[in-house]
């Protein structure tokens, strides 16, 4: 079985690095990018099984736009939205756009793992 590939997108570098490290530590192939543009570029280069996507990001392209792009390019990718904001409306919008699930930051790591597992199962 080919290794599972996970892309983490968050502008908060400290958070990004740590999540990537912890996922790798659990035997997953994870990599991180710090902006929406970069994320879109990486998706274009290679397919990912799961994308953890921060909704609120500076730099011209926020999570929802990235989500749209992903769904267009690779509709099979499971996207889990992360948000530090109770922008539930935005999260709902994301769900309607085809996101797999959403999580409120700070989240419990176990919960994140559960959601990833669920996303991979599908």
């Amino acid at each position: 079985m080919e290794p599972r590939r996970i892309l983490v997108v968050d502008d908060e570098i400290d958070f990004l690095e740590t999540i990537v490290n912890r996922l790798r530590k659990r035997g997953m192939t994870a990599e991180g990018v710090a902006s929406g543009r970069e994320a879109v570029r990486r998706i274009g280069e290679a397919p990912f099984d799961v994308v953890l996507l921060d909704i609120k990001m500076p730099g011209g392209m926020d999570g929802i736009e990235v989500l749209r792009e992903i769904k267009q390019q690779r509709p099979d990718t499971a996207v889990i939205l992360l948000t530090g904001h109770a922008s539930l409306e935005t999260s709902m919008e994301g769900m309607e756009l085809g996101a797999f699930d959403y999580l409120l930051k700070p989240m419990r790591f176990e919960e994140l793992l559960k959601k990833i597992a669920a996303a991979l199962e599908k």
Partner: protein
Amino acid sequence: MTKAPIYRSLRRRIIAITLAVSIAPLLTLAAVIYHQYVKVFEARIEDQIRHLARSQANAVDVFLNDRTALLAVLVTTRSFEELGEQPRLDALFDVITRTADGLGLVDLGVIDATGRHVAYAGPFALRGLDYSREAWFRETMSRGRYVSDVFTGFRQLPHFIIAIRGHGARGPWILRATIDSQVFHRLVRSVRVGESGDAYIINPDGFLQTDARLAGQVLDRSPLAPRLFGEEATVIRLPAENGATRYVAGAWLKSKDWLLVVSQDSSDQINSLIRTRETEIFIILLGCLAIVIATVVTTRTIVSRLEHADQDLNQLNAQLLQRDKMAALGKMAAGIAHEINNPLAVIGEKAGWIRDLLDDPALRESPVHPELVASVDKIENHVERARKITHRMLGFARRMEPRLDDVDVNRVLGETVELLQNHARINDIRIDLDLADGLPIIASDQSQLQQVFLNLLNNAIDAIGKDGLITCATRQIDKEIRVAITDNGPGIPPEQLPRVFDPFFTTKEPGRGTGLGLAISFQIIEKMGGRLLLENAAPRGTRATVVLPVVIPERK
């Protein structure tokens, strides 16, 4: 009923003003009426006494005219020669006194032109006396008719005489009679006046012509000045002792320049005046009493209505204030929560990463390893605690319109209770359900409603602690469904009651309560168009009431 001082003073002011404007005119009116009445009353007394004086004067005139007429008849029908003879005069006098005793003639005398008393019939020895120098003799001679003032004369007794001149063959002569002062006095005094009344006659010089009861004896000088009395019967008022007024009426006789005086104190009549005044005062007091009662009752009603209206208004204001406060706080809370969430996420993940690293077998050998693990645990615990708060704050700030589900309030409540049943049982808390039959299905938001019930039930459980009872009752009242959750915990101190809906108001230990439960619930229910009330229940405990409007779901 609580009476704030402002309402008490308002009530007192309204009562005072109303009483002033209603009772003052009444009293004025009463005074005016009484004054008018006194005037009429006095006028009536005056009329009465004037009338008395007038009619009494007439009676005295008649008396004098009768005597004068009798003498005039005798003078014209009998001659001087006949009456000048003593036996004949005696016989005549005898006939007169026997047949007309009431005439009151004391004696009868005949005087010739020279003033000599030629014949005399009567009790005194007056025959032969010479009257030529007496004023009355000359007066009668020149005028033909004379009524004297009272004088003592030769007999040294007060009396008065009537004299008539006759014409005989040997010149003029005079027939003269003395009037019995007793008969005359009786006549004058016969006037019907009250206890303080008096009646007498005075001559133009002010000398009494009859005995008076109060004013003095005959021939005393009266204190009254006769010229005060005019042509017509006149009444003057004099002050009497004991504050009363003495009414004095004087009427001049027609047949003689005598003034007949009748006097009377007002005190005789004053009783009726006093009675009138007492009646009036009684009526006025009755009126005042009615006014006072009506004023007090109306004012009480008005002011208490006002107080209630004010209370309602205050309640409404408090509710609006609460809403504004929470909207502002909600925005702020959301901002803060968001700013904190990101660093909190980093802390949490870093701690997790440290835990991951501590799993390394080499590190496990380290003597400080257990302590490091324990510290990471602590960090994670506290991140979890902070997470709870920020997530609740965000939930609080959530400005979502409630979804419209078909909600069976009884079912939602029942399910929520079921969720907590275990937790309650462990703490020896019984939760009773008292659900109304046939509640309508309403259009509302099921999960938000459940969140509210959860908050309220958790509060009740926390308040009781251990061993107690929670009752959940549903009722439909008109167009509302009421859900009452009552516990028998310690209740809420009155001074805290206004603050329980404030975000972050909690009496629970740090870490145990966020103080957002009621704030969020309040907002949710308000969004649904309902109300959330919290009050202390009798005899102890707290009752939370959720009032939901009955909105019938649209048919899809």
